[in-house]
C-alpha cells in the first residue's frame, strides 16, 4: 500500500475548532441582523392596518388622534427638495475639489478632518447651530429654508464621500487622454470625468434623500412644527414633517390610538428603506455596465 493521506488527531481537532469558530461568528452575525428583522416585522404587522389612501392624503383630525399624515408627508418632501438644492452642488463641488484639484497639504487635511467632524457632530448640536445661525442670525425664522439648510450641512459628508469615491474610480488614463488633446482641467472634468461618475453621484443623491427624510433633531427647532392646520406656502413658512410627527404622536399627544404611531413609523421607514434599496440596486446595475 502506498501511503495515503490520513487525518491526524491534530488535523481533526483543528478542523472541529474551525467549524466551531465559524459557527460562533455566523451566529454573532445572525444576532446582529435577526433582532432588527424581528422588530421590523412587528412594525409592519402593527402598522400595516393603518395604511390607507385616507391615512396618506388627509390632514390629522381630533387633536392628531385621527385622520392622516398628508401635511407631514408633504412637509418632508419640501424639506428634502430644498435640502438637495443646497447639499448637492456644494457636496459635488467639494468632492471634485478633493478628487481633482486638492494638493496634499495642510489645507486638504483640514478639509478632510472637517468632513469627518461634520458627520460626527451630534445632530442636536447641528440643531443648535441652525437656531443660532439660520433662524436668528440670518433671520430666516423657523422655516423650511432654515431646517433644510441645517440638514444639508449635517448630511454634506454623505454626498461628498459618495461623489469623491465615484470620481476616484474613474481611471487616471481617461484624464491623461483628455489633457493630451489639449482640454483644460474643467473641460476634462465636465466632459469625461463627471459623465463617468454620474452613477456614484446619483447614489449619493438617493442616500441624501433617505437621510434627510429620517432626520428629526436638526429640524425640530429650525422649521418643523408639531401641528399646522394648513400647508406651507413658501420656504419661509414652517411645516410639519414625518419624522417629527412620529415623535409627536408617540410621546406628546394624549389618547392616540396605539396603531397610529406604528402607521407613521411604517411610512417613514418604508420611504427610507426603499430609497436605500434603490441606491443599492442602482449601484450594482451600473457596476455591471461599466466597461473598464
Amino acid at each position: 500500500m502506498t501511503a495515503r493521506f490520513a487525518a491526524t488527531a491534530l488535523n481533526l481537532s483543528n478542523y472541529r475548532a474551525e467549524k466551531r469558530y465559524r459557527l460562533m461568528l455566523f451566529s454573532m452575525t445572525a444576532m446582529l441582523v435577526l433582532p432588527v428583522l424581528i422588530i421590523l416585522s412587528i412594525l409592519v404587522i402593527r402598522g400595516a392596518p393603518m395604511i390607507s389612501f385616507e391615512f396618506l392624503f388627509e390632514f390629522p383630525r381630533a387633536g392628531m388622534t385621527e385622520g392622516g399624515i398628508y401635511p407631514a408627508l408633504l412637509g418632508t418632501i419640501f424639506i428634502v427638495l430644498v435640502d438637495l438644492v443646497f447639499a448637492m452642488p456644494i457636496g459635488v463641488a467639494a468632492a471634485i475639489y478633493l478628487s481633482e484639484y486638492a494638493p496634499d497639504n495642510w489645507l486638504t487635511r483640514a478639509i478632510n478632518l472637517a468632513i469627518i467632524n461634520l458627520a460626527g457632530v451630534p445632530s442636536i448640536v447641528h440643531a443648535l447651530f441652525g437656531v443660532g445661525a439660520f433662524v436668528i442670525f440670518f433671520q430666516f425664522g423657523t422655516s423650511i429654508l432654515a431646517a433644510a439648510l441645517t440638514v444639508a450641512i449635517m448630511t454634506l459628508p454623505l454626498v461628498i464621500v459618495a461623489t469623491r469615491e465615484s470620481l476616484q474610480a474613474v481611471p487616471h488614463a481617461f484624464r491623461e487622454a483628455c489633457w493630451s488633446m489639449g482640454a483644460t482641467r474643467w473641460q476634462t472634468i465636465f466632459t469625461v470625468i463627471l459623465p463617468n461618475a454620474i452613477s456614484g453621484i446619483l447614489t449619493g443623491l438617493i442616500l441624501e434623500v433617505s437621510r434627510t427624510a429620517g432626520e428629526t433633531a436638526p429640524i425640530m427647532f429650525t422649521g418643523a412644527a408639531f401641528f399646522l392646520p394648513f400647508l406651507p406656502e413658501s420656504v419661509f413658512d414652517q411645516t410639519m414633517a414625518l419624522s417629527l410627527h412620529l415623535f409627536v404622536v408617540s410621546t406628546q399627544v394624549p389618547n392616540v390610538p396605539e396603531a397610529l404611531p406604528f402607521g407613521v413609523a411604517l411610512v417613514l421607514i418604508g420611504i427610507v428603506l426603499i430609497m436605500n434599496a434603490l441606491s443599492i440596486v442602482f449601484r450594482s446595475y451600473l457596476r455591471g455596465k461599466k466597461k473598464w
Partner: protein
Amino acid sequence: MAEKSAVPSRLDQRDASWFIDKLFQVLMFVGGISAVIFIIGIFVFITKEGLAFLFEGFSFLEFFGSINWRPTSTNPTYGALALIVGTASITGVAILVAIPFSIGAAVYISEFATGKTKETLKVLVELLAAIPSVVWGFIGLSIMNEFIIEVFDVPIGLNVLNAGIILGLMAAPIMTTIAEDALKAVPDKYREAAEAMGATRWQIIRQVVLPAAKNGLVSAVLLGVGRGFGETMAVLMASGHAINIPTSPFDSVRALTATIAAELGETAQGSEHYGALFALGIFLFLITFIINLAADLVVRGIRKK
C-alpha cells in the same frame, strides 16, 4: 529661454477657456473649503449663543460636580453631572452590546463569507444603518419597553438598558462596516504566509489578521462611542428622561442630547436657561470632536506603518 519662445504663442494665451477653467477651479475650491467654514461656523454660532451664560450663570464646579439640573426653579441650578453620567451609562451599555456583534459580524463577513452570502450580509448591514433615529426611539418606546417589562419583571421599561440596547443596535451596523474595512485592508499576503506555515483559518484570524487590523478596530469602537454620545432622538424616547444617577440598568436616566432636545423649545431666546442649553451643546461638540480626532489619528497610525 530659447526653448520657451519655441512654444507657439497661442498656447500661452489667457483666452476664454483659460478663464472658465480658473473660474471653475475657484468655485470647486469654495465647495471644498465650505466644510471647514461650516465646522468653524458651528463652533462660532453655538459659542456665541452660549457665551453670555458661560460668563454669568456658569460655574465650573456646579456644571461638572452637581447633579441638580433645575433650570426652571426660582433659584435655578445647572448641574450637568447626572446628564453626563446618564449619557455615559447608556453609551457604555450600547458599546457592550455592539462590540461583540459588530466585530464578530465583521470577521465573518470579511474572512468566512463568500459570494452571494457576503453581498447579502453587506446589503443587510447597510440597510440596518439607514433606519432613522426617531424610528429607533419609537421601537424603544413601544416594542423594547414591553419586552423589558415582560422579561425582567420591572415596572418601567424605559431605562439605561432599553436605551443602551437600542443605541447598541443602531451603532452596530456602522461599527461593522468600519471594522470590515479595517479587516479588508490587511494585505492578503499576510494570510497566505500564515496559511503556508500550516495555520488554520481561525489561527490566521486570531494571530495575524486581528492584530494587523487592531487600529482600525479601535477606531471603529471609538466612532461607536462618538455616535453614542451624540445620538438624540432614540435616547430621548427610550431612556425614561429622568434626572438620576443610575445604580442599576433598570433605572431611568437623562442624556445630555435629550435635555437639549426636550427643553430648547420651552426657553426664551437669550435667557439663562437658553444659554445653559447651548453650553451643553459646546460641551457635546468638544467631546465628539475629540473622539473623532482620536479615531482619525488611530487610523492614520496604520497608514504610517
